[in-house]
């Protein structure tokens, strides 16, 4: 029963922990596979997720933050959850050190539609900590083997404060590159912040990416998405060319446990990536 059992996690080891934000509640965990076979089997694309599994605590579905081009490891950026339900898994993970071992089930769900994105101009819009699978996508597209498959790449990324931006070193590196336009914004800066200030929707309006042969890939807190979508409609992006990733409470991650449905779609196995056109076909029950 252990062979190819989709409910049994594979062991992984924490090889690196990066403290992402100044509130210390968001960390990126780099895992290496304990069994080399598992590494071979863990074939994924940006936008997919996996269940992080700690026996005695449970499992938590988290988007994959690394790119498939990052050989030998897989990364997840995890927020210590617990506004209402104590996030047992995320808390336990945050309390672990490098060298610690947990379980991993995945990759799960559908990725960003890479073939559909090819040869198109890509506008990546992210807010706060929901940037994880977008980071994966950007890293993937920027890789030297892949860059030529995509048109212009624009990244608009915002956080509430400078200290809450994730992947700061990478953002700085992207800003220096000529083959990607990187716009970083914060709702409110501080004394050392020299960059943009402003909410993501306003910045999108200001930057006004062309809808010509372009796809917008948007992830962020619900309020950001709510105000960003109209901006892209106004700019002329069609519903088919606006993509986002949904979140619902999940358990199995493989479309069996019946928990994460929105209408007739399971977010875990039919999503989590949906175009706006697809979402309009679903009831508003999320």
């Amino acid at each position, binding site marked *: *029963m252990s062979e190819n059992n989709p*409910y049994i996690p594979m062991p992984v080891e924490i090889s690196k922990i990066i403290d992402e934000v100044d509130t210390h509640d968001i960390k990126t965990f780099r895992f290496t596979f304990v069994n080399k076979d598992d590494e071979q089997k863990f074939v994924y694309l940006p936008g997919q997720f996996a269940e992080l599994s700690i026996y005695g605590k449970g499992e938590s579905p988290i988007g994959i933050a690394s790119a498939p081009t990052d050989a030998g490891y897989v990364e997840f950026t995890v927020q210590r959850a617990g506004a209402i339900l104590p996030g047992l898994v995320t808390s336990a993970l945050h309390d672990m050190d490098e060298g610690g071992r947990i379980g991993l089930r995945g990759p799960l769900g559908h990725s960003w539609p890479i073939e559909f994105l090819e040869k198109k101009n890509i506008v990546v819009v992210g807010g706060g900590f929901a940037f994880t699978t977008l980071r994966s996508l950007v890293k993937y597209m920027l890789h030297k083997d892949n860059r030529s498959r995509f048109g212009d790449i624009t990244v608009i990324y915002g956080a509430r404060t400078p200290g809450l931006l994730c992947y700061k070193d990478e953002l700085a590196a992207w800003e220096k590159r000529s083959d990607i336009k990187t716009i970083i914004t914060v709702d409110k800066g501080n004394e050392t912040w020299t960059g943009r200030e402003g909410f993501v929707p306003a910045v999108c309006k200001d930057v006004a990416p062309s809808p010509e042969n372009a796809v917008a890939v948007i992830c962020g807190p619900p309020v950001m998405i709510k105000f960003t979508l109209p901006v892209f409609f106004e700019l002329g992006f069609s519903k088919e060319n606006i993509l986002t990733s949904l979140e619902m409470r999940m358990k199995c991650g493989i479309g069996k446990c019946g928990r994460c449905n929105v209408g007739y779609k399971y977010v875990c196995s039919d999503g989590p990536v949906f175009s706006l056109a697809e979402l309009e076909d679903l009831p508003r029950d999320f």
Partner: protein
Amino acid sequence: MLKKTTIDKLPELAACLMEKGTLVAPVKEAGGFNFRAITDAAQVDLIFHNTILSPKTVFFPQTEDFVRYSVYQPILEAKPVEPEIRPTFLFGVRPCDVKSFEIMDIHFTRTGVPDPYWRKRRDATIIFGFAFDTSEEADPAEFYHTLGIGAADPDGSDVFMLRRDDVLFLKAVSPRGENLLGGLAGLTDAAPDERKYFDDYIAQGHDYKTRYTCVDAEAIAKEFEAIFHNTDFWTKVSNACLSCGICTFVCPTCYCFDICDETQFGQGVRRRVWDACMFTDFTLEASGHNPRTQVYQRLRQKICHKYSFHIRKYGPISCVGCGRCTRYCPVNIDIFSIVEQAVQAKWYKRM
């Protein structure tokens, strides 16, 4: 091949099956009948209408252990639990419940990632279907006929059984059933007039009417899509709902589960446990967001899942009209009455 035995010789048949594997059959216990693994051949009781819990418990038990672990041991020490699955004879399943297995197969094994537990248990099991007694008046809670399932429908069974007074007829329906029946001692061949009785009974089973007739799944699915956001309708039909889990737990086609780590003194087991979309915390996210805080949203989810989402995703209605949800609902909510109100009497006609 039509065989027969008598009700008083049932324990002999049971004993014969118990030699070959695990026999699961209706057993009378406090509160009513349930399918249980038989330990004493005399326990098997076929004088029942239907069980409280559906026979899905055989393939999808309320708890299924995945992994045993110790919180003091590294993850590599965790051991997957090998379920003990022996050849199983599931005895005395009503035709509507047999149909439910086929519907659950689509979800568990025929689409997406196959569920290894359902598959193994299902593959190991030979099903003895059992016709309803059509001389009785139909149970008011049931509506399998409405959904196109006959009271004596042998489809999906390996062996199909029918009781006539104190005689029990058994007919092999599948090759697996044929193999098994051929090798069972104590059965005798039925006489030609009995074979005719059997065939007639099955044919007439389709005329045994429960509540309504003629249902167009596609049309119903569309109707529910159209009224999904009609909050007045859903509030009205859910006013009485207590939001307990009875309807989903007794249902033969409800498959939702939770995955729980249950630890005691450091030793634990990760297992799946039935869950219910009627529970308040079913969709409560760690962030505190819950898309279904209201009773009407949860009842809507349950009914639309069965009569709309499932049709669009998998084809058939996810309901076999066994009537358990209606029968055991503490406040008499009747799922088909809600369907009826939703489609405004367009797609069915009264019997």
